[in-house]
């Protein structure tokens, strides 16, 4: 079967799955889409990480799901299932955060009815080459439209802690020692403080700055055209500075976060220091490596095609496509953290949807269809 004129999704995680669901919504059959990944379960990687930090609730809200439409969201689903309007009321008040179980169950249902498994190919793509009628993946298959969603390029450990036997990354399975140092000040770090305190540990929070408190990763208007308009029209240096500034660690405000920490502080079980001081266990909630160079596939693609970049970001069009490799006949889109040049919160579910919808629009108007 010739695969020219069909779509490929490189990356079988959540962002890839969102793109798949969006393409299916847009009228593509499973036979027209190939998904390349290493695990047929699109939630596998995310589930492992969420499990490692014992995450119970999503930071995202009712519309933080993988379905192409934002409505009905998870609050509507929960209200219907529980026969209780409370999730809708909480959503109305911006206080609804679905449980991880609800999110995963919804994703599993979508997966079952979307035909994902028909399209999935267990293959790690290592090379993308532009050819006249599309993109050649690993020197064989050619696809007119390619959506790259390879996810975060590895876990980040501070250089000074690499090789230390006491160190483990928050996103790797772990227990809690009686005294634990937790490095970082974002959502994962805050979750780990509560986990370790609940396990009876004494927590030493290692951080160089006080965390910011935000309900979502970014102020809400940066999730819509209202905020994106000025972002897209800003100069590259300003845009890079914006991304750097808003990538500072943050976690949501609220008593559920503050009260256990305050209680532990009063009991002498929670301290803040600026550098590790010799505890038996050091948990690094320090996120992921950053920049396209950390992703071998993207680094190769940039080098091979001479794509413009700016301070670690690949320069993208506002719809998350790569301008130099996108034309009326073919499309190359980047999603996940690699798509931040188009959408600052690209590494969220909303970001995945943003890139997927942009991709769908391009593909639907493509002359090769």
């Amino acid at each position: 079967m010739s695969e020219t004129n069909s779509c490929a999704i490189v990356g079988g995680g959540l962002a890839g799955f969102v793109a798949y669901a969006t393409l299916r919504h847009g009228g593509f059959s499973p036979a027209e889409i190939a998904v390349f990944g290493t695990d047929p379960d699109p939630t596998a990687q995310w589930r492992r990480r969420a499990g490692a930090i014992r995450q119970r609730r999503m930071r995202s809200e009712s519309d933080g799901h993988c379905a192409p439409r934002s409505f009905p969201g998870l609050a509507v689903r929960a209200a219907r299932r529980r026969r209780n309007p409370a999730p809708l009321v909480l959503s109305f008040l911006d206080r609804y955060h679905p449980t991880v179980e609800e999110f995963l169950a919804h994703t599993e249902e979508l997966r079952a009815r979307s035909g994902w498994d028909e399209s999935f190919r267990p293959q790690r793509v290592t090379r993308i080459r532009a050819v006249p009628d599309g993109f050649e993946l690993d020197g064989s298959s050619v696809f007119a439209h390619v959506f790259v969603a390879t996810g975060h390029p590895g876990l980040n450990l501070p250089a000074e802690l690499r090789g230390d036997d006491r160190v483990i990354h928050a996103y790797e399975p772990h227990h809690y020692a009686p005294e634990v140092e937790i490095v970082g000040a974002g959502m994962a770090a805050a979750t780990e403080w509560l986990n370790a305190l609940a396990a009876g540990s004494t927590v030493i929070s290692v951080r160089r700055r006080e965390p910011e408190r935000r309900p979502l990763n970014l102020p809400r208007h940066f999730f819509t055209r209202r905020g994106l308009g000025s972002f897209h029209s800003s100069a590259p240096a300003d845009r890079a500075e914006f991304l750097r500034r808003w990538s500072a660690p943050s976690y949501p405000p609220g008593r559920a976060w503050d009260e256990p920490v305050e209680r532990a502080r009063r009991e002498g079980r929670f301290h803040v220091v600026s550098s590790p001081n010799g505890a038996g266990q050091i948990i690094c909630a320090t996120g992921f490596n950053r920049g396209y160079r950390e992703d071998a596939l993207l680094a190769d693609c940039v080098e091979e095609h001479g794509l413009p970049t700016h301070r670690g970001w690949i320069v993208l069009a506002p719809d998350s496509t790569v301008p130099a490799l996108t034309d009326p006949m073919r499309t190359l889109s980047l999603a996940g953290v690699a798509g931040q040049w188009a959408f600052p919160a690209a590494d969220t579910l909303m970001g995945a949807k943003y890139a997927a919808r942009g991709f769908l629009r391009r593909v639907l108007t493509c002359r090769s269809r």
Partner: protein
Amino acid sequence: MSFTLRGRLESRLAAGLVPLFAAAGLAAAITEWWPLALAAAMLGVGLVFDVAYDRWLEYQPGWLAPPLALLELGAVMGVVYGAGISAPLTVALAFFGGSWLLGQVLVHGVFPYTRLSYGEEGGELGRIGPALAAVVLATLGVLGGVALAMQPPTVRLAAGIHQGPLVLDHAQKLVGEPGAVVRGGILITADNVTVRNVTVVGGESGIEVDDAHNVTLERVRVSGAELDGIHVRRATVHIRDCLVHSPASEYAQGIDISFGFDLAPSDVEGCTVVGGREGIVTHFTMARVADNRVVGTSLRGLTLTEMSMAVVEGNHVEDSLGVGIYCGDYSECEIDDNRVRGVRADEASGDKTRMGFGIVAHHGAEATISGNEVSGVASRARSFLGARISAG
């Protein structure tokens, strides 16, 4: 949601489409323009507020929608009253509430469901947005133009005394400047006449409406008439915020609306009637009599009789002789939330049905009553001659 200005305006106009067409349908059905004027006021206020919201609200949480709706409602009602749009209050509130609810359903459910990127595009509707907006604005423009073209001419009555009787025999709006007085009465014989802000002194009847439809009397003051203050025969009238004072004749009524049972209902709202035999009386008429104040009548405060069908609510009747509110002669009356005080027994008449009763049903009439405050009377409510009073 974080709207863009364009998103707000497009969403507002798209959500206004159904209410606008509903208003047009209602206007056609009742052959009045106020539903369209109300819809236009709602849309206009909404669009102006959208510009303000755009400036002040980077993000609009769901919980903010009800308080903002109340703010808009206040502004819309201000426009309605300020522009003299004659929309009944309850209908206006229901129309606003229904439109708002529909808008919420559309913005939070239908638009995001039907348009994938509705949220991330800040409420913009893509190519269809400007088209919908154009349809709404064009509809408003066309209907507004037709409405304006069909409006009766406005005649300004200058301050000072004008010798009557004035005869209004074609559609028009007679609007008095402050201090405009007509001596000798006004006779209305044409449909679609509005008389506003005019004082009438003397005349056989202060204002007489004869065989006319859709006549509106607003903020008129009537005094010194020989017979009735306002005398309506086989006509549909909307009387609001009037003052009728001391008809001179012992047979005169404050406001008398009669013999229009086969016509559209009339209403009397927010008026004050002082003196006369009956303050407000209907014969063989469908009417709503609401929120009026009637004081010092010599026969009854409010009378609904001769097979009238009437809603009587929120009125204040005080210092009547004999009967406060009377539902008689096979009429059907719904009498709710009125206040009746100080009804004196009419001993001189020797009529046992007039011995200081708050509410009376008489001669086969059926009255449903609820929530009335009756005090200073011999009896709160009585029925006579096969009439029936039941609690609502």
